[in-house]
Each structure stands twice: as C-alpha cells, then as structure tokens.
C-alpha cells in the first residue's frame, strides 16, 4: 500500500504542477498580450 500511495502522489503531483504552471503562464502571457495590443491600438488612434 505504501508503494501505491507514493506512486500516485508522484503522478498527481506531476500532473498538478504541470497544470498549475501551464495555467499560470497562460494567464500571464494573456495579460501581457492584451497590454501590448492596447498599446498598439492606442498608438494607432493617435
């Protein structure tokens, strides 16, 4: 049973860390992209 617990904790930890990192990076790049687009459209309007 110990082996099962350790193995599945490792699996879940890996998947959890990957999902967390992926979603954090998506949110971060999304906000930076929106800021860059706003800057460009602001320049265009000027």
């Amino acid at each position, binding site marked *: *049973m110990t*082996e*099962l617990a*350790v*193995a*599945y904790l*490792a*699996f879940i930890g*890996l*998947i959890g860390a*990957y*999902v967390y990192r*992926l979603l954090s*990076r*998506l949110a971060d*790049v*999304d906000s*930076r*992209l929106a800021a*860059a*687009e706003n*800057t*460009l*459209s602001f*320049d*265009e309007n000027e």
Partner: protein
Amino acid sequence: MKTSIDDEGQSRRTMTSVRATGAALTALGLTGAATTLLLGLLWAPAVDPEAWNAPEAYRILFWHVPFAWSSFLAFCVLFVGSVAWYSRRSEFGWRLICTGSDLGLLFGLGVVISGPIWGSAEWGVPWDWGDLRLNTYGLLTAVALFLVLARNSQPEGHDTRDTIASVGLFGFALVPITALATTWYQERHPGIIIVESEEAGLAPEILTVLMLGFASFFVLFAGFALLSDTLHQMESRLSHLQRLIDKEAVH
C-alpha cells in the same frame, strides 16, 4: 498596420476558442483519469498472489501504462515537429517541438518515477541495468529533459532550433526500440499485457480499467497539447507585438 492588427485580433479569437477546447478536454481527461484511479483501487480485483510478488502494487500500472503510451504520443509529436522544422522552417513545427518535449518530459517522468516504485515491490530492485526497455526509456526521458532545458536556456534563433530539432529526431529513434524491447529482448520488464491478456491472465475488469485509462489519458494528452500549443502561439505573438512597439518607439 491596421490590417495587421485586425488579422492579429482574428488570430487571437481563434486562439481563445482553441484554448477553451483544450481546457474542456483537459477537464474531461482529468475526470477520466480520476475515475480510472478510483476503479483501479476499489473495483479491479486483486491479482493472483502466487503469480505476483507484490499483488497490491500492481495497481500502480493503471496510470503507469497510460503515462507510458502518452509519452510515446508526445515523442511522435516531437518527431513530426522536428521534420516540419527541418523541411520547411515551419513555426508550427517549432511549436510542435515545444509541446512534444514538454509533454514527453511530463509523462516520461511519471513513468520513470512510478516504474522503480513498482519494481522495488515486485522485483526487489528499483532498476535493472541489463533490461533494454528500462534503459532506452530512461534515455528517452533524459532526451526530453535536455530539450526542455535547452529551449529555456539557449538564445532563441535558427541555430538553437536546428540543434534541438536534431536531438528530437534522435529521441524519436528510441521510441520503436523502447516499444518493441520487451518483444525483442525481454529481461525483466513485463511484455505487452493488453495483447497477451490470455497468457497474462488478466481479469476482464482489469482490462476494462486499463482501457478507460488509455482513453482518459489520450483525451488529457489532447487537452494539454492544445493548451501548450496555444501558450507557445501566444508567446510568439507577444514577441512579435513587442518588436512592433519597439520599432514604433524608435521612429
């Protein structure tokens, strides 16, 4: 400039839609994987204690085997990306390389961590340096690790991409060797249990849970691949827009 920004707005809407599909597939895949785990722990029967040294530890395989198959899929994506990059210098090919190496590392690490845990219980040793499959698979995961580290540490450019794509092609060559190693040269790692189920004596419930695991991890893989591709596409667009802003600031 206006047309270019409009095109980019259209492209962004497409990315948003792909991202939503990726998120939905990821949620579905995670639900399936969790169901596989619960069924594997609670519903699948115990195996014959006479035939297995660690009859309870076999339940590790309900995620270990789909992880391994998903990693092979990731290396196929890496291979297609490497070929696309070499043949056409395709940006899509490069994004496939990024996605394939990320997912190859994720699923490869899962296999390399869980395999020795099961091996310790079943064989009494975590690793066998004489077993072809274990060692080629370990090398395959090391290739994925190298690719991810190289992408994050080397300066962006065609030279770096060429090097990474060539290592990706080499990595893919290990996939058929690893996949067929138990048929060609079996030392310790078990054979193909799905195909040889009669000989392996697996109960139908165990096969059902394994098949659910394969389907769930396939969906999860597709979700991860779509989200990862969207991320790399967004990063590429961000770099492009930042260059435009820099250019406007200069003029």
